[in-house]
């Protein structure tokens, strides 16, 4: 939402909502996603899972303030570059001035039109960068070198996330007025179907392939060690996601309210869809299924949150719940160890929502889509938007998968990706962090080392 307004006029209501959204979206990574994933791993690697999430927040937060924001929302350097903004334009937030939004250099806020200061936009968007990187940890549980993960977070955020955020939200290739918008129609990605979920899902797949299977998978049982953690994490994600989706409107207006409702509705239906699929297939409606269904629904409605009416949200939620519940089985068929189903939930859920927009996008019932986008096929808009959505989704899959694979290969060659086998068998928590999560009888501390 770039603005060319002449004078910046602070809107305290909008700013308050955006600051609040930024806080609850941060909650989605720490603690929500960390514990959602942490409960699903085994006792011996829960600390490493939590740590990979917490350090992703630490590293990406810091990188975002240095050059991330500038790459995502800065100005492109040349006419043919529609991929990323100039990393040095707002390096260290240098030159950002929230009080003089007049389109001149150094005064750019993507939320200026809502009267929201640039610094709030920086704060809101950093929480998105953090969670997108953190989502990948689910694919690499139990086995990645901690230092290599840290290096990966810096490289991946810089080479994959910041450019894709620019392309979709910063006025680049896939955004309003970008190449696709001029030649076809504007891709609809309200809160991050391509930028966050397809992106992270494809990256998780690439990294899981590079890392290889966990020792013993799939023969050895790897039962989630704490399902209440998983349930708690999923519930906190659900709550935080209202900041993610309704906050993505950039203002406390009616579209934010519509996005809030769509987010809630799709999630309710997705949980029911997942549980029904499980009940029919496996005989039980499980707590892990409920938690997973919640996340699948949230993922799928993310790109579509603003542009659905009530019926559209229900279709998106139901499709996500059922399709993701089915998709989590594909890793066994293809033999890649995406440990906690980043592909099955985030890639499949992200694709589901992004592509269904092509059928269901509307501006009925208070829904909204950006300039240059069209109504979906079922709402009389023809097939153009569907083609656009498929193209945008395919672009995100290929862009993220290929670049992630390259980044992974480079780190593998320089430092290695995987911990030694002996360490993995004994548990990554003890070997990498020198701690164990639980005070069990077998691991009682006997004395302090002098």
């Amino acid at each position, binding site marked *: 939402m770039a603005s060319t307004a002449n004078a910046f006029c602070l809107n305290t209501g909008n700013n308050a909502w955006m600051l609040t959204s930024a806080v609850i979206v941060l909650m989605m990574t720490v603690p929500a996603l960390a514990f959602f994933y942490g409960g699903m791993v085994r006792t011996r690697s829960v600390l490493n899972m939590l740590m990979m999430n917490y350090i992703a927040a630490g590293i990406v937060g810091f990188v975002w303030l240095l050059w991330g924001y500038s790459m995502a929302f800065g100005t492109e350097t040349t006419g043919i570059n529609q991929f990323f903004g100039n990393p040095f334009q707002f390096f260290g937030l240098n030159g950002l001035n929230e009080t003089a939004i007049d389109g001149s250099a150094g005064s750019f806020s993507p939320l200026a039109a809502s009267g929201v200061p640039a610094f709030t936009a920086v704060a809101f968007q950093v929480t998105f960068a953090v969670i997108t990187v953190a989502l990948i940890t689910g694919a690499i549980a139990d086995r990645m070198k901690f230092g290599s993960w840290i290096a990966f977070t810096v490289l991946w955020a810089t080479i994959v996330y910041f450019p894709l955020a620019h392309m979709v939200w910063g006025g680049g290739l896939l955004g309003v007025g970008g190449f696709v918008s001029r030649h076809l129609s504007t891709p609809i990605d309200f809160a991050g179907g391509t930028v966050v979920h397809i992106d992270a899902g494809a990256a998780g797949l690439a990294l899981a392939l590079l890392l290889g299977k966990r020792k013993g998978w799939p023969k050895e049982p790897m*039962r989630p060690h704490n399902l209440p953690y998983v349930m708690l994490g999923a519930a906190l994600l659900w709550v935080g996601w209202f900041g993610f989706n309704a906050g993505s409107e950039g203002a406390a207006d009616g579209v934010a309210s519509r996005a809030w409702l769509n987010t809630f509705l799709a999630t309710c239906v997705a949980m029911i869809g997942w549980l029904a699929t499980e009940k029919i297939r496996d005989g039980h409606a499980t707590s892990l299924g409920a938690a997973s269904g919640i996340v699948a629904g949230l993922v799928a409605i993310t790109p579509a949150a603003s542009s659905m009416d009530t019926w559209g949200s229900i279709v998106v939620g139901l499709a996500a719940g059922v399709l993701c519940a089915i998709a989590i089985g594909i890793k066994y068929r293809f033999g890649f160890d995406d440990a906690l189903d980043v592909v099955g939930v985030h890639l499949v859920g992200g694709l589901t929502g992004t592509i269904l927009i092509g059928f269901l996008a509307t501006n009925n019932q208070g829904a909204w889509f950006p300039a240059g986008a069209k109504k979906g096929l079922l709402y009389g808009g023809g097939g153009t938007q569907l083609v656009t959505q498929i193209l945008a989704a395919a672009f995100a899959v290929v862009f993220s998968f290929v670049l992630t694979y390259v980044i992974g290969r480079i780190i593998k060659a320089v430092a290695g990706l995987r911990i030694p086998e002996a360490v993995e068998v004994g548990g990554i928590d003890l070997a990498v962090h020198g701690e164990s999560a639980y005070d069990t009888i077998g691991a009682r501390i006997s004395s302090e080392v002098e």
Partner: protein
Amino acid sequence: MTKLVTAIIQPHRLDDVKSALEGAGVHGLTVSEASGYGRQRGHTEVYRGAEYTVDLVPKVRIDVLVTDEDAPSIVDVVIQAAQTGKIGDGKVWVTPVDDVARVRTGERGAGAL
């Protein structure tokens, strides 16, 4: 002279067994968490479509030291309190004990019980 009665029971029967033993005059016992299987052969659990067989199921193990003559009746007490009639109720067995000592006083044999 002394016998060790060991019982493996369903965890949810512990409270009943404990009070039944108290009622039968047992002054002390040791309880530990155990896992295992008998004819019951565990159960299956499904996580995101992946089915696991859990054949070592949680049980409670009770160890109690009694005199020779009390042993048969204590076994009966345990059976009565622990029985549900369903598969997986557990086992009780008796083993002879060579010697017993109370750590605090150094008493030996029956006096240490």
